[in-house]
């Protein structure tokens, strides 16, 4: 799918800086950001930064990826619960896919995610790496 640059840069705050929404009334944080709190309907909110570490709550190893990710296959994909309770889905990298497991501690790192064709937009964002420090 052709990705215009606006579609890409619109996501920079979330993908590059891990910006999330915290609603004033409920105190709940959501990532990606939302305009309306699903729990309270509240729209009063502030932007907060996600904690960079969390634990894997589930994962898979993708062996038949979509066209954009052929060169990375097989790669692990995981959902982690961050230290503030928010949940993030991301690829895992710098890890042997066979060693990924539930409970594994991970850290968000800024990485190249995908490139659209030979001369297309390069999409950057976050991946999980094993937390070792």
């Amino acid at each position, binding site marked *: 799918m052709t990705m215009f640059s606006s579609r890409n840069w619109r996501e920079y705050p979330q993908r590059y800086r891990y910006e999330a929404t915290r609603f004033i009334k409920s105190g709940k944080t959501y990532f990606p950001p939302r305009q309306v709190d699903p729990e309270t309907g509240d729209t009063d909110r502030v932007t907060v930064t996600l904690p960079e570490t969390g634990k894997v709550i589930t994962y898979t190893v993708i062996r038949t*990826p*979509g066209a954009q990710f052929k060169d990375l296959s097989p790669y692990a994909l995981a959902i982690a619960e961050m230290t503030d309770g928010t949940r993030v889905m991301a690829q895992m990298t710098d890890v042997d896919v066979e060693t990924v497991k*539930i409970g594994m501690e991970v850290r968000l790192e800024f990485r190249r995610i995908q490139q659209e064709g030979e001369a297309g937009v390069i999409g950057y964002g976050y991946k999980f790496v094993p937390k070792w420090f």
Partner: protein
Amino acid sequence: MREVCVAGVGLSEWGEVWRKSIRDLFVDAATAAIKNAKVDHLDSLYVGCMSGGLFVGQEHLGALMADYLGMAGIPAMRVESACASGGMAFRAAFLEVASGASDIVMASGIEKMTDVSGDGATDALATAADQEYEVFNGATFPGLYAMMATAHMARYGTTREMLSAVAVKNHKNGAKNPVAQYPFEITSSQVGNSVMVADPLRILDCSPVTDGAAAVIVTTPEIAKKLGVPYVKVIGSAAATDTIALAQRADITVIKSATLATQRALKMAGKKLDEIQFAEVHDCFTIAEIIVAESIGKYLPGKAGAAILAGETALDGKFPMNPSGGLKSKGHPVGATGVAQIIELYKQLVGKAENGRQIPKSPKIGMAQNMGGSGASSVVHILEVA
């Protein structure tokens, strides 16, 4: 609301149907349904389709299909809710007849999936997930359900044998279904040794890519009686939604939209779950049938896998699930699936399931559960013999 019934059904050929276009497949199913119901006109038409745009570069399917059915002039609309498009189209037709706005409405579903490569199909199907926060990061549909499976196995001890049992059972039923794309039996070891797609899901845990169409005539019992055709009553219809992204759900081992839609449909029907005698459920992956069986309330969380392995949901079991062969064996043309589920309920309830696929002891009430994405939408219908 008026009483509503299904008074005629039609299916196209299902499978890799390269000779036929999306419009040919639709017209095959639609003309069969019209003939079956003996109706001479339609008041309106709903076409369920997930992605005509990505699979064949064609949108505006309501008008196209009405035109090629020879009925340009009637109101026609395309309905989309990813893989639940067919069930939602049926619900739209149900509501239009129930409201009294129309008397004879066609609910149809269509998907033409083999005009693109495997990659093209993977990418088109992935648009049912959160494009910016799941697919952007490399998620695929098997990958999303695989993550549900990993969590379910870790939490409840669900096993490889339990996953395989779903595929084995559905292929056993589908082997007797003349429309099935893969009408043959498979063994547990074949499933367990098939190629890995997204751990722990293997290729034989996954429903296939299918071309196919399905159509039903939705009307009132009075009109069906006048037409002199068999009919079954639609006594419950409900839909529900959940977060689009899997990561946002409080519990990823349950599909809450299926729970909510089932509860609402039962309430409308004035029935208890125990009164439902069989179900067609959305087994896009083996783990989906296990989770749905628990989410609709039929089994306690973590208990469906063992029950399926023990044969409780076989054709002659306590609660037959997917007598048609399910998405796994019958095939999964995503927009058509929800309508085809209704057709299976109709056939079972009027006693016309083919080739020894009929559920013993003539069931009186059945349920269809059709869902979109990783469960962000579900639609449930309850049908009863007239």
